């Protein structure tokens, strides 16, 4: 199991040929209270960098981009009723979607946990 991060603060936790996508703890802290999450439909094909979901705080709407290319095989529909889960447990119960990867080599272009930690330090 490996977790990789994007510069836009999405994470993908890969197990086998699929990965769980969410936003980082830093991202949820920057957004503030999440009040709405719009998820893609299961079966949707995404290219790396596509707008995959929308997360809204009291103040503003932000896009969540696909960290890799692939097919959406599952979404966390609990976020519709409890969007605040994204704040409470971003790495766990606050996940957004599961993507079946079509090109695993795309993971090589993402940051490791350690690299992401350095990146966050450099911008905060």
């Amino acid at each position, binding site marked *: 199991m490996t977790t990789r991060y994007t510069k836009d603060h999405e994470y993908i936790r890969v197990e086998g040929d699929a990965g769980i996508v969410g936003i980082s703890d830093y991202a949820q802290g920057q957004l*503030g*209270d999440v*009040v*709405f999450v*719009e998820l893609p439909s299961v079966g949707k094909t995404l290219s790396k960098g596509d707008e995959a979901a929308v997360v*809204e705080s*009291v*103040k*503003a*709407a932000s896009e969540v981009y696909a960290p890799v290319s692939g097919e959406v095989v599952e979404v966390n529909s609990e976020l519709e009723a409890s969007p605040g889960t994204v704040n409470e447990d971003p790495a766990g119960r606050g996940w957004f979607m599961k993507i079946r990867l079509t090109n695993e080599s795309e993971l090589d272009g993402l940051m490791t946990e350690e690299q992401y930690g350095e990146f966050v330090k450099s911008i905060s």
Partner: protein
Amino acid sequence: MAEPAHSDEPLLKTPLHAEHVALGARMVPFAGYDMPVQYPTGILTEHNWTREHAGLFDVSHMGQAFLVAEDKSHETVARALEALIPADVLNLKLNQQRYSQLLADDGGILDDLMVTRVGAPGHEGWLYLVVNASMKEQDYAHIQARLPTGVSLNRKDNLGLMALQGPSAEAVLTKLSPEAAGLSFMMSADVQIDGIWCHVSRSGYTGEDGFEISCKGEDAAKLWRALLADPEVKAIGLGARDSLRLEAGLCLYGHDIDTTTSPIEAGLIWSIQKRRREEGGFPGAARVQREIKDGASRVRVGIKPEGRAPAREGSVITTPDGREVGIVTSGGFGPTVNGPVAMGYVAKDVSAVGTDLHLIVRGKPLPAKVAAMPFAPHRYKR
């Protein structure tokens, strides 16, 4: 009001800046000032705290000024201001406050403001003005250029201004100044709190009961701390200020009202007293009187999206069959409503409460209905 500061100009600080930093606020540029958008507990908690207890807001960035008649006559200063705004200033009682708008010659709104007839002895012929932070330079230039001889504008850039808002506000202030806490809505008094001279009015911009308190800049931090010392009071940032005023159906300048909107389109006829509606004599009077008589072609309405998705400022409004009828001017999540709320301008024929509309959000039509405002009931002490 939300125009970001020009990037190469240093941000101004209010007299309470260090207090915000010490409380761990997230500071953002707002109207040229470095202001707290939220404190560590976040906007939702701050919003709900204000509705249930009392919130303390730093609004020292707003422009405070006096209009002064040399002859010490209220009539002189009132007539001077009535030439610029549609409110009845002449019949203001001592210490009474009114909401109004600076109007352009075409009836567009240059800014909205509060006007108070100063009641303190020795200040006969004085009006106290509070204007939006982002507009103050333009407002002052506009007013200055149009004043008759014998009336002058005295800007007070060194004052602090804070708002104490919420159902506990009265009880909190009673302990510090029973006189101020006994004011009725839109009345004001000059009082001492903790040895600090303050001008207090029973007013605010959250829909809750509350007070706005002006004092010398050098006294502001002491007063802020005295108010925050009460366990019922928490500091509240600009983020919750915006969600509170949106639920209260109150206009934000530069968003819900601007030079393209008239006070009648904006639903602000209540702020134009009968004498002024009849007599006119303010900029744009012809348009305002015509719109009062014939109705405006578009009006500001409350809009309730039916789902959970907020519709933000700029979202296009259509009829269910796709006819474009307006635009959202403020929109977001209302914590008290526990759902999305919005306001915007729509064509007169689709403005009745209950009318079905669509809001175009990220290219998709969201069902919504015209809704009565306020979304959260006003709780003013009249």
